[in-house]
């Protein structure tokens, strides 16, 4: 048990530490591959020199302008989504309850589209994304009734909310920006093309703000996983913990969407991979964040070097793979009789 005063207490699981270290190594390897593969790539042997700031002009340009920011945004967005998914799945006690599955990503996308196109300069895009995600959450919660517990209902409501959000986005694109339509279209499926350090600063800033808050409620969330009654009996205040976790999850999702668009299924899969690899009970927040970062960096790497050209939004790639995974997950869940 890792303790920091009375507020912060983190159960530490030895295998989790090992897994996290291993995943970090993989993440560094994937990051190095992202920077060095392909035309214009910085050769691996030159990488330390260039990162240290002593590279030639072309190399520095590739690192500072082309691939560095994109990599930073990919890792930060993946971490935010992994964390958001872990929080959400844990407090709804539902492996399928994930921000992207229930339409939060699509809602944030619609909010971002409105902020960017209908109210340019008046409402910052991240704030629009946050509003969209919050509204989507509210609609899902209303449609499912009081609890977010029933997995099937949660997802079906999410399908409805996502459909409405897509309709809003399509409407905004059709009305406001015919010439920008194809750029926006890519954005609406989640893209990491042409990112700058400002995008990286936004997403890493939000992640940095969220991590201490996650640490504060991590203990309460772990207690929550045992069920509301038990959590309340242990002084856990299940409802307020759930509200806090879901709010954090909404903020993280909105931040991810505002820098990269709604990237599908990372929030769904990262926490589950974390749980599977560590074998640890509980939400596995830190590992989920690292897995999320690794997933998105790898997905972006695959998209950049896919034969049908980059420019393809990375969200489509995760959507295709994540869809297959969701199918597997559904069959497993209803074999167990959970659905």
């Amino acid at each position, binding site marked *: 048990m890792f303790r920091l005063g009375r507020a912060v207490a983190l159960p530490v699981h030895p295998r989790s530490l090992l897994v996290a270290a291993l995943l970090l190594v993989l993440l560094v390897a994937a990051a190095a591959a992202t920077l060095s593969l392909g035309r214009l790539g910085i050769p691996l042997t030159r990488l330390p020199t260039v990162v240290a700031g002593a590279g030639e002009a072309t190399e520095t340009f590739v690192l500072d302008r082309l691939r560095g920011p994109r990599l930073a945004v990919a890792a930060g967005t993946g971490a935010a989504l992994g964390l958001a998914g872990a929080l959400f799945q844990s407090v709804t006690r539902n492996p399928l309850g994930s921000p992207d599955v229930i339409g939060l990503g699509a809602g944030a996308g619609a909010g971002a589209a409105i902020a960017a196109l209908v109210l340019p300069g008046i409402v910052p895009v991240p704030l629009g994304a946050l509003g969209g995600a919050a509204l989507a959450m509210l*609609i899902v919660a209303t449609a499912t009734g009081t609890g977010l517990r029933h997995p099937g209902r949660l997802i079906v*409501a999410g399908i409805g909310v996502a*459909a409405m959000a897509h*309709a809003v986005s399509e*409407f905004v694109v059709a*009305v406001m920006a015919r010439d920008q339509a*194809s750029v926006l279209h890519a954005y609406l499926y989640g893209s990491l093309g042409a990112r700058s350090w400002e995008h990286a600063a936004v997403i890493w800033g939000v992640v940095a703000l969220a991590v201490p808050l996650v640490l504060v409620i991590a203990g309460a969330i772990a207690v929550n996983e045992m069920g509301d009654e038990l959590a309340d009996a242990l002084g856990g205040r299940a409802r307020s913990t759930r509200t806090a976790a879901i709010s954090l999850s909404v903020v993280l999702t909105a931040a991810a969407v505002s820098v990269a668009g709604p990237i599908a*299924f990372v929030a769904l899969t990262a926490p589950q991979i974390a749980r599977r690899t560590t074998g640890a009970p509980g939400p596995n927040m830190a590992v989920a964040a690292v897995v999320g970062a690794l997933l998105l960096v790898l997905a972006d790497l695959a998209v950049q070097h896919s034969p049908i050209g980059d420019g393809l939004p990375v969200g489509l790639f995760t959507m295709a793979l994540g869809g*297959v995974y969701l199918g597997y997950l559904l069959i497993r869940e209803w*074999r167990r009789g959970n659905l």
Partner: protein
Amino acid sequence: MIGAGAAALTGAVLLSLVLGSKPTTPLEVWRVLTGDADGFTATVVESRYPRTVLGIVAGAALALSGTLMQGVTRNPLADPGLLGVNAGAAAAVVTATAVLGPTSVTATVWWALPGAVLAGLAAHAVGSRGGDGGMVRLVLAGAVVSAVLTAYVQALGLTFPDVFDSYRHWVVGSLAGRDFDVVASVLPVVAVGAALGLAVSGGLNALALGEEAAVATGANTAWVRSGGLVAATVLAAGATAAAGPIAFVGLAVPHVVRALVGVDFRVQVPFALLAGPTLLLVADVVARTVVRPTELMVGVVTAFVGAPVLLYAVRRMRETT
């Protein structure tokens, strides 16, 4: 009640002829219909004939498809769009376009049909794995099939932007820019589906009582079930081929119809055949007037109408599951 439905459809047809990016008056439309108008007005109004007819055909097909699906599966969430049929049709059409180059809308029908049927079968296969299909399983399976196929369709669309320029409007569902050839090419498909659907719809009342009671009443449940699903898929595929993947009409109409005329399928089916075209035509009128002078795709409007119905259905599920 059927009279009111017919009146609503007539009104919707009139609206569809009168309103558009160039608004006309009912009087002008009357003059065009009687061959007594100036050339310009006649051209404007006549350009609205094909989309109105297409709206009637596609709306009726989708509504009947949804009614059959919800009746057969006894699942208030069943909808051709949600079950992946639309995505299947879209995937088949983009594949054909990518391989063979841009084809006529008429040709897309023959690609959309097998794609729709295959995707529907895939969703059923996933949804019925590991035991009896529950209320939400088919929808979830459909969501999976749709997610994978949508990613594929979008990826192809973004990779070959020139080829897919014309197709972009088809993919969100639109009644615009179709001529009578399109209607004519899907009409046989829709007619076969509708005939089969009407033939089995009498058995849906028995099926609604549950498997054992239905068998006890002497109903041939296997025939009603398989015939109903085949008809629903064929109808959805025909409508999708002609108008693009229009979601939620098949979901929303049966709910509205049930609320208005009750649970007897002998009344529901004819009423759905009136309500579907009414909904689709009104949605299309909204789509082409709300952002004048440009047009919105009708699929966007039906999502606004249909998604709340889905959310309402989810809320109602609380009592049954």
